[in-house]
């Protein structure tokens, strides 16, 4: 399946005491805050590209 989005610079974000709560990624040239929710289209596409080996998500700082 062809990638629907051009995704780069994906990184998990951790805030406060929380574990990974989101992914910050550049999608089609725009920096977006993507929630970890399978119903979210951006998150679903990120995970599909990860599973396809096309994308790696960096750990949170």
């Amino acid at each position, binding site marked *: 399946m*062809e990638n*629907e*989005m*051009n995704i780069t610079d994906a990184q998990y*974000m951790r*805030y*406060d*005491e929380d574990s990974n*709560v*989101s*992914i*910050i990624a550049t999608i*089609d*040239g*725009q*920096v*977006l*805050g*993507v*929630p970890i*929710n399978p*119903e*979210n*289209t*951006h*998150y679903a596409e990120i995970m599909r590209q990860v599973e396809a080996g096309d994308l790696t998500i960096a750990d949170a700082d």
Partner: protein
Amino acid sequence: MAVVINGTTGIDKVQDGSIGTADIAADAITPTEIDNSVLLGRRNILRNGGMRMSQRNGSGSVTHSTSAYHIDRIKANVAGSTASRYSIQRLSTNRAPGHAHYYRRECTTAEATPSGTQSSFDDHRIETQDLSSLQWGFSAVSKSATLSFWIKGNVTGTYVVWFYTPVGTEFKMMTKTYTIDAADTWEYKTITIPPRDDTIMPNNVQSGLYVRFVWNTGTGNTSGTQNTTWGADSNVNRYVGQTANLASATGNYIEMTGTQLEAGTVATEFEHRTMDQYNFDCMRYYYDVAVEGGRCAFAPGYFSSTTSIRWSVFTVVPMRTTPTYSESAVPRAADAGSLRNITSTTVLGFDRNMCNLIGVTSNSSGSNHSANVTMSGDVSFGLDAEL
């Protein structure tokens, strides 16, 4: 004895009260006849069919190089590494009969001979739960669906509308065609598709049906066999029948409006909705908040640590799911006399119409301190729950 009233100049008058309920047999008036003559409410399954909503660009023109929503609820796609490019714009001049707005797609970079799966197309993607009126999967009661729309373009020929159902153990597709017969002329088209009954359409917030208007495509999508009934998804079968190439030259265009998908085999008159209904329909998927006219404190927040600030915004309607956050400029936290940029903002949680956000700042005056979240200048942020 059957009686046929066949006056050559019509019927002068039926006497008042002369036709009672008992005089009309149970099957004398069929639903088809009613559909053809009575305006029924909420028939259009598509949202923004009248092309009135354009939250992201207003009436401005945007040339897209990636797949994205520009006019609300219409995803303009590029696929197969196509070189073709188009400008997208919502307009209101030279409009179709009975419509206030229309959508225009104009070729800005030509691709005279698309190869492989190089293609450009527009998607209307519909939630499974919004397809309940079709009752697909219940063959005793399931209904066909009829698509109708107004279209105008300078490239005559045959175009494809591709229907795709990403549900069940096997995703299925169907291909239908229509023709633009006369150049630069508004034409009304209708297409009817049968129900898909081999699986019960789920009832959730995921995509249940794509209605895809194809504008240019390579032979990688046209060299197979046309699926005129629901069949397995296959690249070579997808757009079989498409002979028109809207990307054959720059300046080529199509304009569309009055797009309607409804239960049944009859295309009824377009269901006009009020502007507040258009807003509600579209803001379920995208909510643009513009801060215009200078500085504005639009939400109270608090520092949950010295470097994290949380705040909430309320959306007009419940969104489809937890949205993605985007911004045209960073918001700032007004705290203890300082303005601190908020970066790496994301949506922490979403419930009904309350969206909780979190971001990172430079050190604040202290954990649990309150702050106002501000934006300055004419900037905006967006919440995106599109399909």
